[in-house]
Structures are given as structure tokens and as C-alpha cells.
């Protein structure tokens, strides 16, 4: 990409880079490196969940059947739709359609919010079902085997960690939308949208991995 245009689409060169191309390359490599670390953060949890399933298939399947499949499935669709709107925002930013881009970003944030609301309802349903083995004042109602407890505990840690990422992602997205709505943003920081878009797709991707591992396998 070339140097920024007065009102067009581009990136303003920071003082320590030789060229805009170098700056873009650094930003892209940086976010990918970060996403690898994020993936590994979740990978350890998913690996443990899978090994628990392999070693104790009956207990984990019994516990997994109590997860709210339809809420999980709906949330998967919701996140895939949010990835679509985020991709649209990136396309609009490339074309310089600032207003459409802002709307697509707001739609993305709204879908992310919907996910969190559904997830919250799911936790409430879990709580009502006495499915929280770590609450000493509410006896755990599922099969009382160590493997079942371990699996359910991993489910909470993994989904809470994902929800935390989603919450952070929505906050960042709203902050960026606020900045991106101002005049001249796309001429200076178009690549912020691209870089952020990768992060959003990653949050989606983690859920797409979590959903089959926790809800679907052996169902």
C-alpha cells in the first residue's frame, strides 16, 4: 500500500519504520504470533478435556450430555455470523466506506453481546440443574465420579476463559468503532481494522473448536 491519502484509505508511517509496507508486515506478523499464543492457551485445556474423554469415556459422555446442546449450537451460529459481519467491516474499510464499516462493526459487537447473553442463560440453567461441582452449598447432581467432575470443571474453565476473551474483544471493538467513526481514521489506521479482524475471527475459531470438543463428541 502507498502512503496515506488526504481522505482516502491508508496507513500513516510510524517514525521507526522505513516504509508503510514494513509497518503493515510487522503488524500482521505480530497479531498472528499473538494468536498462536492464544491458541496454545486454549489448546492445553482442550487437550486435557480430550484425554479425559478418551480415558473415561462413559463418565465424561454422561456429563457432556447435560451440556445445553442447543444453546451451544445457537451460539456457534451467532459467532459465525459475527465473523461474517467483521469480514464485511474489513472489506468496507478497504473500499473506504466508513459509514458501512462502522455499522458492520456495531453489528459484530451486538452479535458478540448476544453470545454472552445466551452463555449467561446457559450458566443459569447449569446452576439450576445442580451442575456446579465446586459449589459446596449446592450438591452436585450428576454422576459423582472424579472424571465427570473433572470434565465439568474443565467445561467451566474453558468457556469462562472464552467468554472473557469475547468480553475483552467486544470492549476493544466498541472502543475502536468510536475512534473509527471519526473523519480521517481510514487514511491513517486502516490496518487496525484488518489486525483486529484477525483477533475476532480467532475468538470465533476457538469456540468452533470448543463446541465439538465439549458438546458434540460421542454424543
Amino acid at each position: 500500500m502507498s502512503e496515506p491519502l488526504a481522505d482516502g484509505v491508508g496507513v500513516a508511517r510510524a517514525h521507526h519504520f522505513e516504509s508503510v509496507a514494513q509497518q503493515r508486515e510487522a503488524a500482521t506478523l505480530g497479531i498472528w504470533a499473538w494468536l498462536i499464543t492464544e491458541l496454545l492457551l486454549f489448546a492445553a485445556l482442550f487437550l486435557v478435556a480430550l484425554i479425559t474423554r478418551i480415558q473415561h469415556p462413559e463418565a465424561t459422555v454422561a456429563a457432556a450430555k447435560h451440556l445445553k446442546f442447543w444453546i451451544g449450537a445457537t451460539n456457534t451460529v451467532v459467532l459465525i455470523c459475527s465473523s461474517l459481519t467483521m469480514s464485511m467491516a474489513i472489506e468496507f474499510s478497504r473500499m473506504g466506506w466508513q459509514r458501512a464499516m462502522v455499522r458492520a462493526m456495531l453489528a459484530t459487537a451486538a452479535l458478540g453481546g448476544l453470545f454472552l447473553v445466551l452463555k449467561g442463560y446457559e450458566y443459569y440453567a447449569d446452576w439450576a440443574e445442580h451442575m456446579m461441582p465446586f459449589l459446596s452449598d449446592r450438591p452436585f447432581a450428576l454422576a459423582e465420579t472424579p472424571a465427570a467432575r473433572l470434565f465439568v470443571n474443565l467445561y467451566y474453565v474453558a468457556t469462562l476463559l472464552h467468554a472473557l476473551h469475547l468480553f475483552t474483544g467486544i470492549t476493544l471493538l466498541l472502543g475502536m468503532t468510536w475512534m473509527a467513526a471519526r473523519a480521517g481514521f481510514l487514511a491513517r489506521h486502516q490496518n487496525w481494522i484488518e489486525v483486529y479482524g484477525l483477533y475476532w475471527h480467532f475468538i470465533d475459531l476457538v469456540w468452533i473448536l470448543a463446541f465439538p470438543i465439549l458438546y458434540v463428541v460421542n454424543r
Partner: protein
Amino acid sequence: MSASGSVGGTARREPHAPESTIGRKSDYLHAESTLRSWFLTTDHKRIAILYLASITGFFVIGALAAGVVRLALIVPNGAIMTNDTYNKAFTIHGVVMVWFFLIPSIPATFGNFLIPLMIGARDLAFPKLNLTSWYVFMAGALFTLVSVVLGGVDTGWTFYAPLSTAFSNTWVLPALIGVTIVGFSSILTGLNFVVTIHTMRAPGMTWFKLPIFVWAHYATSLIFLLATPVITTALILLIAERAFHIGVFDPAYGGDPVLFQHLFWFYSHPAVYIMVLPGMGVISEIVPAFAQKKLFGYRFVAYASIGLASVTFFVWGHHMFVNGQSDLASLVFSALSFAVAVPSAVKVYNWTATIHKGALRLDTPMLYAMGYIGLFVLGGLTGLYLATLAINQHIHATYFVVAHFHYIMVGGTVLAFLGGLHFWWPKFTGRMYSEPWGRVSALLIFLGFNVTFFPQFILGYLGMPRRYATYPAEFQLLNVLSSAGATILAAGYLFPMLYLVYSLWFGRKAPANPWNAKGLEWETSSPPPTHNFLSPPEVPRIPYDYPIQAQEARDQHG
């Protein structure tokens, strides 16, 4: 645009500079002098100095705790302090030294300062992220130290579950949270280095012209990126279990304590190479400079860095030989652990071959480097003992292990750190340190280190277990010897702190290249200007282009 950008606009502004700035030095140390200019700086060199000051503070805390441990072990019956105090002292020593000194030491200080200079860049790729990582580091480290102020932790630096989640009644939670936070600082630093080395190299600076220091930091950064997230997961699970009884490790909650060991050592064995690889990078710069000779087998040393970083991911199970894992797993981990010796030995052979027939100058950095090579060889060879299944059964969790990892981690990191500190001190500060005092300190540290830790090999072989406050009376002589060595070591550490600080004000002014060394960092002034180079540096034809190399080439061809 880019031509005027390369001098940072200073040249354009100078004719109209306000009265107060005329005659002021323009190097990075003196460009601005307010506190704000230090604590909000995005200059990689100033951030390196921030790290240097903070990790020196943590080193002092860790060293004092080590002093307490050695004091307690002078008598066999635990008469000097209670078991509880002893446990807390060795935990503080381990936690502070490993997490807040050894891991960030060379990467965060020398790496931050030197990588952009060595590759001819103006800064790291993400300067603000770099500053953020220092704040994250400080926040995490201070959070952990809160637990010490409140009353201490007694789990050891490894935080093994279920001791750390269910049984310890000390301040485990703030310590865990602090260490988790510090992990993010490592990740951000590693990420910044990887991106910088990939994208910010000066024109002509190809991968195989990079100094080994840069290669070593590249390999280290990969470990930061690939291993640290896993320990973050492990620590998050520990925190969840201790705080909310979300059981993953405690069998009482359905968990598996061995799982913690897998997650912990999957990071913590590679972490050994986070500590050692940068040290190897430092040694690979010092040895050619003080032998005035091209580094022998440059490509092999570079490959060995990546090789070590790779192999180290497959050996974590050697920490678990006696925890009941399958014999097959133990065999595989044992064999893979032996493989670590190959790239390590490649490096040692290349350093010795570089020294061979070199024009040796035994200045302070070189004394440290030679001490490093000796200690690393001994630490590495005893690592083979530990990787051997049958011998491991005998010496597992004894002082043999303690001696081994101190030879690797102190011999391999602290000596390289001090060697590098003396080597680049003129570049960092623009001042020369006192050479005689430097040599005295290097010799004292080598002597003190060996008197402290060599007896521990014997103690461990005779069967003294680690982490106990008391021991059978027949081990007292060797323990007193070890504690006496620690006093010599302490003196050796104290001297540099005094004469280096003294040199800041009274040291001789340093030239740009006091050692006649090669590498782009020596082409700029000492200390460097804010944007590193006043004119774009010229990338050398080959790395380590020392004159003797040219002489040898003439000899071979003529």
C-alpha cells in the same frame, strides 16, 4: 521522506533549537532527563535500562533469600530457624530468581537494548508494547512480592499441586497471580523480538549475517511464544482450584496432580533454555571479540540455537521419572533428554575452536565467558547423569539436582549476564568500568560458585534430599563448605554493583568500540543516539569479520 526520517528530524530542527537545548548531549541517556521521559519512554534502550534496574533489585532480594537458606543449613538440626521460615526462604529464593531474574535477565535487558542496534533498526517493531511489557512485568513481580510481605509462601517455585491448592496455608494466591501476570510480559517481549527480527532488519542484513546473539534471542522468543501460554493455563487452573475449588489437579475434586506436572514442565523445561540460550548468545559475541577471530562454524551455532529450542519441547517428562509415569514414557523422555547434549556440545566445541589460536585478551568479559564455558560443561555433563533412568532413581530430588541446575542456570545465565554487562557497559553508559576490579570479581565469582555448589554434587550423591531444613550430622562439613562458598560468591556479586555504579560518574569516557569488536552495535556512538544510528549503518560482508579470519584466508589460498 525516509532519508530525513532516518536522523529523526534532529538535523532539521537544530539551527532553530531553543537556547536551553544547545550544547545538550543528544544520546539516548541525556536527550531528556525528566522522570516522565524515563517512565513513559518508548525507546528500547531506555526500557532496557528500566529492566536492568528492576531485575538487579530482584536479584538482590533473591540473593538475600539464598543467604538465609545457606545460613540455616550451617547446622544439621534446624536450630537457626524454624522449618516454616526455611521453607519460605527457599521459596522466595526460587520464585524471585527464576521468574523475576533469570527468565527476563538477558532478553529483557541486553535483548531489548541490542537487537535493534545489531540488525540496524531504529527501534523494536512495537515500542509501546515494549513499554507495556515492562509495566506488566513490574505489576506481576510486585504482586508476588506482596505475598512475601504478608507472610510468605512455602510451596517452592514449582507450586506443585495439591500442596499449593489444598494444603499450604500460606499466601499462595497472590504469588500465583503475580507469576501469571509476569508470563504475559514474557510473551509480549518474545513477540516483539520475533516480529522485529523478521521485519526490521536493515537492507542487506540477511538471516545468515545476523549475530548469534540475535539468533539466540530468536530461538528464545519462539520458546516464550510457544511455552508460556501453557504455563499460563496451568497457573489459571491452579488459581481456579485454590480460589474457587474448581478442581482439576486435586484428586479430592476429581483432578489429577500428575496433570499439573505435565503442564508445568511442558513450560518449565523449555524455560531452562529461555535462561540458557540468551547466555549462549552473549558468549558467542564475547568469545570472537576477545579472540579477535571469526566465530568457528557460524551456521552450526545458529542452527544449534534453533535445535535446542526445538528439542527442549520434548523432554519435560524427565522431571517425572519417579512419579509413576509408564516405563515407555520414561524411556522415551530419557532418550530425548540425551539429545539435548548434541546442540549444546556443538556450541561448546565452536567456542573452544574459536579460542584456539586466537589473539586472546583476558579482559573481564572474556574471564566471565571462560568461566561460563567451564560451568556449563560441568552442568551439562551432570545433566546426562540425571537423564539416565537408573541413576536418576538414586539422585532424584537430592542436592545433586540442586547443584546441576545451579551450574546450568547460575553458571549459564548469571555468568553470561555479568560477562555481557561488562562487555556492553561502555555501549550502555558511555563509560568504562575498572578493569582490575572487574577481573577480581570474575575470579571471585568463579571460585565462590564452585566452592558453593560442587560440594552439593557430593551431598546429593551421598543422599541428602533437597528442600529439607534438617539433615544427618555427617553431611555438616560439606554444608558448611557450601555456605562458606556462598559468602565468597556474595562478595563477588557485590563488587560489580559498586564499581559499575562508581563508573557511571567517574569512569573513563568510552570510545564507540573499545574492544575492537564487530557487529553493528559498535558502529554507533557510546551511548547511542535516540534513533540508534545517525547515518544508515553499513552491513558487513560476513558476520564476525575479524582480521585474523582474513589472515587465515590468505594463508589458505596463498
